[in-house]
């Protein structure tokens, strides 16, 4: 891969060149009420590239919380039309685990029955990653192998003090850099420094998985009847927060809305959560995951086994957001997998 270097003092030139360019909106981590959140960047000074984590992942720019799928007219002649809501966006400052989460979303929405709503939007998104050198206390990316991204970005920045090493991941990224930034080739010493910074960051994770990630699906193969699910889920509030903040969760509900004149309306999808009580309820009254235990277990299996089997990627990237969001303190997959591992010994 090609690597460039950009001086920190030149970074704001790059950001401002992007924000003032026609066409694409720049979205990045900004400080908000003592935390960080992705939002529109109007000026380079708003962008915080050394953030630890954001409450919500950048997922909402790929799969909006609410998205119109079709509109319809209910006049004499019915008319239905597809709606594709896409616009050019530069996601600036995405951590490697969130890049991996986007790769999982890509796999899901491009598999059999490609989802044009997602894919059109995705095509217009540029991903500029930034290595996470200051991980969140609930994150466990190091042990999950998601702390470093090799693919999935157009550009990836690593802070090495007074400069960033820029890894070029695509021709789109290369072009963007050529057009908007002043860079030079990275030296061997600078690349070595990048690796040192990454290694240092790996040692900063507070939570770790007590098994290699590829062992998780096998562990789950024999954990179905474990009482861990029952015990941990007892305190669950069925609030769905763990799912809402997750960068890899993509399940949705579909609803219709009609205008007051009853002549037109739209069908939209919105985020939904398998941890909510009625997710699997059907009209006859049967609910296929009626108790907390089976819902928590489903979420853990989805993260650790089902998506792995379907797309060859785990459904968890270790960002720790669910653990931070859960008032009952039971949502972290790392904790559950570790307990299951402990029990299986």
């Amino acid at each position, binding site marked *: 891969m090609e690597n460039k270097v950009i001086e920190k003092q030149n970074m704001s030139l790059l950001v401002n060149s992007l924000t003032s360019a026609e066409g694409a909106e720049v979205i990045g981590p900004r400080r908000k009420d003592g935390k960080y959140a992705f939002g529109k960047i109007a000026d380079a000074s708003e962008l915080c590239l050394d953030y630890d984590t954001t409450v919500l992942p950048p997922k909402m720019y790929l799969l909006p919380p609410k998205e119109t*799928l*079709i509109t*319809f007219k*209910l006049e004499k002649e*019915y008319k*239905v*039309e*597809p*709606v*594709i809501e896409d616009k050019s966006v530069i996601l600036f400052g995405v951590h490697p685990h969130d890049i991996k989460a986007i790769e999982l979303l890509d796999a*899901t*929405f491009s*598999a*059999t*029955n*490609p*989802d*044009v*709503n997602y894919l059109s939007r995705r095509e217009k998104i540029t991903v500029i990653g930034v290595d996470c050198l200051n991980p969140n206390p609930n994150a466990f990316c190091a042990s999950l192998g998601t702390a470093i991204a090799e693919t999935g970005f157009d550009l990836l920045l690593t802070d090495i003090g007074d400069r960033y090493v820029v890894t070029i991941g695509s021709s789109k990224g290369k072009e963007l850099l050529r057009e908007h930034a002043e860079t030079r080739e990275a030296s061997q010493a600078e690349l070595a420094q990048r690796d040192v910074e990454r290694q240092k960051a790996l040692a900063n994770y507070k939570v770790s998985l007590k098994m290699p990630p590829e062992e998780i699906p096998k562990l789950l193969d024999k954990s*179905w009847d474990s009482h861990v699910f029952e015990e941990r889920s007892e305190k669950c509030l069925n609030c769905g927060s763990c799912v809402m903040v997750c960068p890899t969760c*993509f*399940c*949705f*509900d*579909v*609803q*219709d*809305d*009609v205008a007051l004149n*009853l002549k037109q*309306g739209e*069908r939209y*999808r919105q985020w*939904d959560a*398998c941890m909510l009580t009625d*997710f*699997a*309820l*059907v*009209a*006859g009254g*049967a609910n*296929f*995951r009626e108790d907390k235990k*089976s819902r928590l277990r*489903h979420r853990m*299996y*989805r993260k650790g*086994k*089902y*998506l792995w*089997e*379907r797309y060859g990627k785990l459904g968890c990237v270790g960002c720790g957001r669910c653990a931070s969001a859960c008032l009952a303190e039971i949502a972290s997959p790392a904790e559950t997998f570790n307990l299951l591992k402990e029990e299986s010994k």
Partner: protein
Amino acid sequence: MITEEITRTSIYLPQLAELIKVKSIAEREKLFEFKLQDAKELGHKPGQFVEVSLLGIGEMPVSVSSSPTKKSSFELAVRNAGSVSNALHNLTEGATVGIRGPFGKGFPLESLKGKDILIVAGGIGLFPLRSLINYILDKRDEFGRFIILSGCRTPRERVFVNELGQCQKRQDVELLETVDRGDEEWTGNVGMITTLFSKVTVAPQNTFAIVVGPPVMYKFVVAECKKKGLRDEQILLSLERRMKCGVGKCGHCQINGVYVCQEGPVFTYAEILKLREAI
């Protein structure tokens, strides 16, 4: 360029269809006949389902109830169970609905050809099964013996009474019916659907059982099929799950890692044994 055109089509966009006929078939059930706009063929297999849109109200998954041998239109039999089905029940001929699909895997016709067929229908399980029953009746010589066991709670809840009556008259169909509770007029069998199994003999090597009914029924009926000597691969079931997209995206229909809308709704019992939370 054509592939571009196809891959750019929204998977959520329904085709419009016209309701050409409605018929009441029981207290809460109606049969709807639709024609796609531009007289397109639906092109389904028995056991597949469509997503029916009542624009402004929502979508619901419904099995196609007519046989693909009937080409110019298709039928859906629907129980009034909630918002979309209720709105559907209020429609009159000439109304427009949206249709997406057909979706899912239907009954494996290729494996069924030449075999004896044992249909087990619980209540409105007959809705999806009717597409297969009519298909077999239309291609009767491609199949072996044809046995239908049908059960519902009370005589009043029986559906497709006339059509079953027609089957009863045919020499090449063995139909047995039962109700859980009879009434003054009912002279037929009384008892759970499982009680019909003692009244039929099957050649286990050559028979496929196809079972559709309420979730509670499956365990008991599968046990009866196995008592008859059928292997797990020879028992087919169709499962219901909540569905919001029909195309393997929304996640609602999952049984473990399986998407019922994609890999189902029809499964062999052998496949189901590998799943937890299935029946």
